[in-house]
């Protein structure tokens, strides 16, 4: 697949841009943070109405087959939407519901489970969260949360951290250990768990990007064999590609974030006066802007290539995904730092939007592995 948008993709991009511009203002990030966002449940930190509207546009179902109410399109298309959402720092449960929990059910669930949840996701009626991470750093098989076999099924105990969009979710997908010890790839098992089930306690977290994340404690929560997704002990096989696809999606969001931050900075360089001249005439700033431009172009290329590699089922898809995550994270970090520096004092204030881009980028950078993690993985996959 060529690294350009097809005509259909361009139409999707245009409509996404239009919807996003009309729906999400960057200032909503502050409203979510300060609890001033209109709506009944400010702790939700996103809008169910907007989620519903995007479902009507088909976006929540882009990667899901038509039989479950999806569009049956690919990651290239999903990336387009995520990039546009990234530009507006729009908080929506895409990563959690579509890329993590939804994709886990699609790839690992049985027909019953798919029918129970995927149409709801595509229709924008259900929000799901994948509870996997337990430590500060992405390390997918470092799982200590136990699911112990009982006469009736399983009993889950343990703590999950940074669970995206867990507060207010309709269902949780929980990664547990049924055998082996923390760090083993084998012995992991996924469960569908009702957040209202006994022994589940959800604490909302307040994080840097003002989005919905939670700490979940499971205290002897009961689960039946029907709640198991896929085979007992084999969750890693399901999750590995799920994580990779989610990373590819995050890359697209990061491209959107850095593009908007970069363009706003360029605009500032073209309008801000100092010492009787536009600051964009200062050569030192020009050269740094040119460097930022190069980094962003590469981030765009790698992100597009990785998304298309998933759609093409290319053998090098994983390599491209990790390479792209390292590049987008580093480029977003550079642009975040340079943007604030070029805005100067005003860039340091909460009143100015530019800092919000850096905050969201920071969270996206480290979600599912930062650039150090993915550079290491790239080296491993390359065999050196």
């Amino acid at each position, binding site marked *: 697949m060529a690294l350009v948008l097809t005509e259909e993709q361009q139409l999707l991009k245009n409509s996404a841009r239009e919807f996003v511009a009309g729906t999400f203002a960057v200032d909503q990030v502050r409203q979510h943070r300060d609890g001033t966002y209109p709506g009944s449940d400010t702790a939700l930190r996103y809008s169910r109405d907007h989620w519903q509207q995007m479902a009507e546009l088909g976006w929540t179902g882009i990667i899901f087959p038509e039989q479950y109410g999806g569009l049956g399109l690919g990651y290239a298309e999903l990336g387009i939407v995520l990039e546009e959402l990234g530009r507006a720092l729009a908080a929506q449960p895409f990563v959690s519901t579509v890329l993590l929990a939804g994709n886990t059910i699609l790839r690992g669930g049985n027909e019953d489970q798919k029918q129970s949840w995927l149409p709801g996701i595509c229709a924008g009626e259900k929000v799901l969260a994948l509870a996997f991470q337990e430590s*500060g750093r992405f390390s997918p098989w470092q799982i200590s949360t136990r699911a112990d076999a009982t006469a009736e099924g399983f009993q889950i105990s343990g703590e999950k951290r940074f669970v995206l969009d867990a507060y207010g979710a309709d269902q949780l997908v929980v990664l547990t250990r049924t055998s082996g010890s923390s760090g083993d790839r084998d012995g992991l098992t996924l469960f569908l768990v009702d957040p209202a089930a006994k022994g589940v306690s959800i604490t909302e977290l307040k994080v840097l990007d003002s989005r919905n994340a939670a700490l979940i404690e499971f205290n002897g929560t009961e689960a039946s064999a029907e709640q198991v997704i896929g085979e007992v002990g084999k969750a890693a096989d399901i999750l590995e590609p799920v994580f990779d696809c989610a990373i590819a999606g995050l890359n697209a969001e990061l491209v959107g974030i850095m593009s908007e931050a970069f363009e706003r900075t360029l605009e500032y360089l073209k309008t801000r006066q100092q010492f009787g001249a536009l600051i964009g005439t200062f050569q*030192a700033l020009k050269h740094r802007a040119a460097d930022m431009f190069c980094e962003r172009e590469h981030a765009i290329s790698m992100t597009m290539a990785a998304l298309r590699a998933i759609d093409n089922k290319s053998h090098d898809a994983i390599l491209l995904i990790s390479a792209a995550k390292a590049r987008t994270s580093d480029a977003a970090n550079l642009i975040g730092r340079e943007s604030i520096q070029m805005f*100067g004092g005003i860039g340091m*204030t909460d009143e100015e939007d530019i*800092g919000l881009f850096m905050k969201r980028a920071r969270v996206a950078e*480290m979600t599912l592995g930062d650039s150090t993690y993915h550079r290491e993985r790239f080296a491993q996959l390359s065999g050196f």
Partner: protein
Amino acid sequence: MNTENDPDKFRIIVSDWIEQNYPAELRQAPGADGQDPRQSKPYEQAWLQRMAEQGLLAPTWPKEYGGAGFSADQARILSQEQRRAKVRAIPISAGLSLLGPVLLEHGTPEQKSQHLSKIARNECFWCQGYSEPGSGSDLASLSTRAELIGEEFVVNGQKIWTSHADDADWMFCLVRTDPEASKHEGISFLLIDMKTPGISVSPIRLISGPSAFCQTFFDDVRVPKENLMGHLGQGWTLAKQLLQHERQALGSIGRGDARRALTLPELAAQEMGTDDLGRIADPGIRTQVAQCELDSLALRTTMSRSADEARAGQSGGHIASMLKLYGSELTTRRHELMISMRGADGIGWEGPGFTPAAMRTTRQWLRAKGNSIEGGTNEIQRNVIAKRVLDLPE
């Protein structure tokens, strides 16, 4: 305090005094008392008070102005002994570190007796009124107007980044007294009582959260003519002199902060674990930690060299710009490394689920972005080095 001439004896006097007077509570790690380390504590106040009584907040000022009357060498011994005893840094005070030295040199006798002792005794709190919205790095483009009407200046305009203006007693302030004169020559330096009618202050919220910065508005504020420091139109000269002090104060940021609970290597060991040999387990992070520590050492060493040069009467020239530039970039790098080591623990903003130490890392990481902007952006510092030190053509 006895200004004993023999350096060795003097060192003993100083170190004994610290030993006897430094409060036990301050010898614990910040936060060890279970309280928010950002809040001021009674025992901190008591320590400041004891220092002030001895003139030790302004060690080189004359005793008549509340100082300790120390020579430069004696002041150095004091600071060495404080460091050796791990005495926490005193809060940066605009009166002590910025205004004081300039006031000593350029103030009228009346101004000196009115202000210096109060500053040295920590009884009067000053803020700085330099920047304005829109002036940015081009400080001299300021437009706050002070019109001399009779015996008073009438001030109108707006200042930004006036740290602690909301609880300052006085402000030293750059104002435009002659709009006809050239950009730099129409500026004067005023001392303004913050209780004067017509002044209003509103705090600024930063990307890192609440801050000491404020905006300050002047609406027909009447300032007695006697509060002019230096001559009319000489404000820019005084301002530049004062900025040198500010750069030096900001450059020292990169040296590492005694209040930080964990050193960078300690944090890395905690977050990344250690191997059998006790090394930071992740070799990439270890290399970056080593680079930061190495660069800190280099910066500290250059600061020592610069102090030694000053003592030897060899002025290193615009060393302040270099220290500010390098120090702030190092601080930024250090915080980028810290936040990246914290991983998801470093994304906490407030509330439960994150340790106070981790949230402090996050806030400091954001706040540190300002170090390369405030006190003259790093771009300005590079311009200054290119012009003043390297003598490159304009």
